[in-house]
């Protein structure tokens, strides 16, 4: 459900960390530092992070990284991961060739 979220909320200052270059989204090769930075750029929801950085937009569609990204964003925002709604799931559940998706049998 929609909850009021003031985006001018002051976050703790961005402090670079040792593991900022750790790959989090394996498909799109997005690092922890990029995710943390994006939160400070104002991307407060997992959907915005995904649209801004492409986390979870690769071949696997976030099957591996979504929980990891959520943990990082939650920490940066100082909230519990459970408060962050995962991005929407979309068909097809597995990558599907155009020639296959275009061949329907009813």
């Amino acid at each position, binding site marked *: 459900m*929609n*909850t*009021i*979220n*003031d*985006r*001018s909320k002051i976050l703790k200052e961005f402090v670079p960390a040792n593991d900022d270059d750790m790959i989090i989204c394996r498909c799109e090769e997005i690092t922890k530092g990029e995710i943390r930075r994006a939160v400070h*750029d*104002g*991307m*407060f*929801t997992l*959907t*915005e992070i995904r*649209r*801004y950085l*492409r986390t979870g*937009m*690769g*071949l696997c*569609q976030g099957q591996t990284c979504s929980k990891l990204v959520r943990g990082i964003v939650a920490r940066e925002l100082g909230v519990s991961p459970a408060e962050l*709604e995962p991005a*929407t799931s*979309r*068909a*097809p559940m597995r*990558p*599907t*060739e*155009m*020639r296959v*998706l*275009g*061949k*329907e049998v009813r």
Partner: protein
Amino acid sequence: MGNRCADVIVIGGGIIGNAAAYYLAKRGCSVIVLEKSDHLGDGGSSRNGGGVRQSGRDKRELPLAMYGIKNLWPTLSEELETDVEYCQDGNLRLGKTEEHMKILSGLAENAQSCGLDVRMISGEEVRDICPYLSDEVIGASWCPTDGHANPMLATLGFYKKARELGVRFITGEEVTAIRKIRGKARQVITKENVYEGENIILAAGLKSREIADTVGVDIPMQPALLECLVTEAEPEMFGQMLGTAEADFYGHQTKHGSFVFGGSSNFEGFNKDNGTPVNSSITASCICRGIMKYFPSLSDAKIVRTWAGWMDLCADKVPVISKMEEVPGLILACGFSGHGFGIAPAVGEQLSEMVVDGSTALDLTALRYDRFQAKI
């Protein structure tokens, strides 16, 4: 909760609202943006096909498109410090039959009369520009200054910069009404709060109709579902924005390598709604079949995601971008009818002029709210 008063209250945190907020803040206005969704740019702004084109547009909005492409898009990435993936490799509107060619040359002539460089080219010329197109394509209209960009990044880029400039964005804040105070639109009522501004910009897509209704204004628009899909990353093939005479599909290859295509099944006017923009079970397959006729070599490309979005389809298919003299203080920017993305930076800038200068550099008379007249 902080201050709920500002020079301008923008209703709708899509690319129109965000761009307006950005240009307003740049000119020193205090702005609050209210967005119903939990996410900024969650409507059409993040769901469209990314076209930044002039060709194929209605004459009335063409000046906005031409202005934006000339003056705003080329430097937008630097301006927003966000790579919006703007690519100006031209736009091909493809035709497969003589009937198609007729439609296309009609549109081209229209645009030429406004001074746009757009011309009709043959099938061979089309394949010189984009060699992957099938022989079924017999010609196209070609506009070399058109292009595409990443809608999500452009929308969030405006947001990021506007926020940096001090614009207050509040998400999850659903506006229920605008309230006049002493004859002037001044208060914006949400489910839990009341905001106040000298000016109110209503840029809430489809929702604008309901909200405008609270001050007795009606904009004739209706919902229509558009669907898009995206493939896995493919080797770099071509940079053009593509469309077809019959609008079977439209799309482009992104900087990332994936192809984004939009299209329709012809049942868009009748799609059911379960509260979320939900894809229909038949459209993605239909779009794929459409694409493969034009690009046989993409048949092995894998679709990784499909999505849908409701567009605010205006009765005459161009937006309302207009001050409301009847309701002083209220500015409308809605009804973009599925092609608002490409003109969004220009619209944002013009809206800021409307507020700050009282008038706009571009003549937007044809997009006024009171243009809707009965046919006879």
